[in-house]
């Protein structure tokens, strides 16, 4: 067992209904995630994906009131009995809008905020902050105020703040929505680098598959509070194309095009997710 990847998140029949809500936000969730997986969590607006993420770091049930069912283990800890502070050490959360996450006067202080609250020694805090700034490329921003930064820089500072807690899992809830497409790619690449360098588990909530398809090997799709598809990203997209399209999942445009041409009987084979793959297949056919 020593080298087999550990299961870091295990949900069994997990459900939650917010106080005042008419139906459960999530229900009957069975999910297990291994260490250093990169998972894309998606589904239509209101499907429960943010609620599921809130469970992972204990925001649910500790800060949101409601009715909890089932079981959730994160890094061996049961979410219902564990203190949120313990959980938030293990599961870092990067929000959609970095403005909501950054508040200190300088970048360095912002990143140090979490570790300071853990009651670590000065030396340890300093070391963690330096390391986090190093891997996220935020060292040159050290003395700037967060509001002076661009959206992409802010999101990297938010990532650094999360990393300084030395988590095992990072959840990113639509982390690039407010960023321009080039900066969005840069943030996704930086996230993937972190997984590779530090062996972190990454869960990204995103509507736009084209942005994440390059990095995520697994996709989990939710609808009406339940998981409706879970598997290898490319295979799932190919085999469950109609289901995903019907749900309004943000399928890459090349995949949509390919599926349409396949229905016309003009192409065959697996639905591609990348432009370069579609281009070479189509080119091959047209040069015949």
């Amino acid at each position, binding site marked *: 067992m020593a080298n087999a990847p550990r299961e870091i998140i295990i949900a069994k029949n997990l459900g939650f209904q*917010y106080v*005042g*809500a*008419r139906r459960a936000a999530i229900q009957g969730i069975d999910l297990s995630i291994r260490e250093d997986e990169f998972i894309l969590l998606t*589904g*239509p*607006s*209101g499907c429960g994906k*943010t609620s599921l993420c809130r469970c992972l770091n204990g925001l649910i049930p500790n800060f949101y009131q409601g009715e909890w069912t089932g079981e959730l283990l994160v890094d061996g800890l049961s979410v219902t009995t564990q203190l949120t502070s313990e959980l938030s050490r293990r599961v870092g959360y990067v929000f*959609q*809008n970095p*403005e909501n996450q950054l508040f200190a006067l300088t970048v360095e202080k912002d990143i140090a905020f979490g570790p300071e609250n853990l009651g670590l020694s000065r030396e340890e805090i300093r070391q963690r902050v330096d390391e986090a700034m190093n891997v996220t490329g935020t060292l040159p921003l050290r003395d700037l105020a967060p509001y002076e930064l*661009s*959206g*992409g820089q802010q999101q990297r500072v938010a990532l650094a703040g999360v990393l300084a807690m030395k988590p095992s899992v990072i959840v990113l809830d*639509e982390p690039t*929505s*407010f*960023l*321009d*497409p*080039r*900066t*969005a*790619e840069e943030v996704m690449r930086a996230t993937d680098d972190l997984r590779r360098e530090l062996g972190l588990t990454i869960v990204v909530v995103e*509507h*736009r598959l*084209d942005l994440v398809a390059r990095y995520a090997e697994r996709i989990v799709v939710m609808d009406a509070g339940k998981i409706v598809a879970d598997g290898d990203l490319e295979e799932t997209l190919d085999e469950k194309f109609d289901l995903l399209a019907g*749900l*309004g*999942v*943000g*399928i*890459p*445009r*090349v995949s*949509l*095009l390919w599926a*349409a*041409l396949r229905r*016309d009987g*003009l*192409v065959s084979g697996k639905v591609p997710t990348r*432009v*370069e793959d*579609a*281009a070479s297949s*189509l*080119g091959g*056919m*047209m*040069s*015949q």
Partner: protein
Amino acid sequence: MITLEKVSFTYRSGQRALQDIDLNLEGGDFIAIMGENGAGKTTLAKHLNGLLKPSQGRVLVDGDDTRKVSVARLSRKVGLVFQNPDHLLFSETVKDEVAFGLKNFGFAPEVVHNQVIRTLEALGLSEYAETSPFLLSGGERKRVALAAILATEPDYLILDEPTIGQDYQQKERLRNFILQLYSQGKAVVMITHDVEFVAESNPKVILLSQGRIVAQGPADSVLSKDELVKKASLVRPQMSRLFGELTKYGLPSDVVDVHRARILLEEKLSEAKVRVAQNS
């Protein structure tokens, strides 16, 4: 008509956000303002309803200089939906939220009621009428914020990043809704990074970079030019990148949407099929 004449704007910090912007906006227009983070897009939007006044140049809304009329008066004509819905929402129910602006404008209760019902329905929010906005998902809250502005039926509608947090179906619905609005003679301006949404909607695109307009024109011609798109920190739509690789087969390079891509490829692939059949 909204007219911007040589508008420049400098923040008090000395940061220059807009330079020499000329722009006309009239009923039936559909414009997408695109550009990198910090290009000045939101600053430009805030000039359209008088929230910001130009440091140089002027902005005229139906002939009124925005420096000389109140924002309250302008807001009856120009509706601005911010990108972060939480800046806007505060009522206890979705219904009250959408009714708020209408009540403020002094409409009779039954007019308010009917208008609220209609708007909620159009945006797929009817089932949440009695729900607190804060129990809704981010994407749903965003639609509530949009509904609150739409209900007041402004002549000019400015949407700051309307597709953030919206799934594919919501985006389709939004696209249809926008289409309806400008075909009814309203003007719609959206600020967005969402190149795929723009590619499928085909508005006029205005590309901003560092506070200046660097290009404008139909979406397919602007978004298929690599150099321009890079300058504004965007990426070309997938169809444009695909067709960029396929020009050697006699396909055009300015394809940005799936619909046109499909028609063109159907023709080419059918020809290839016939060739293969003839040769064998």
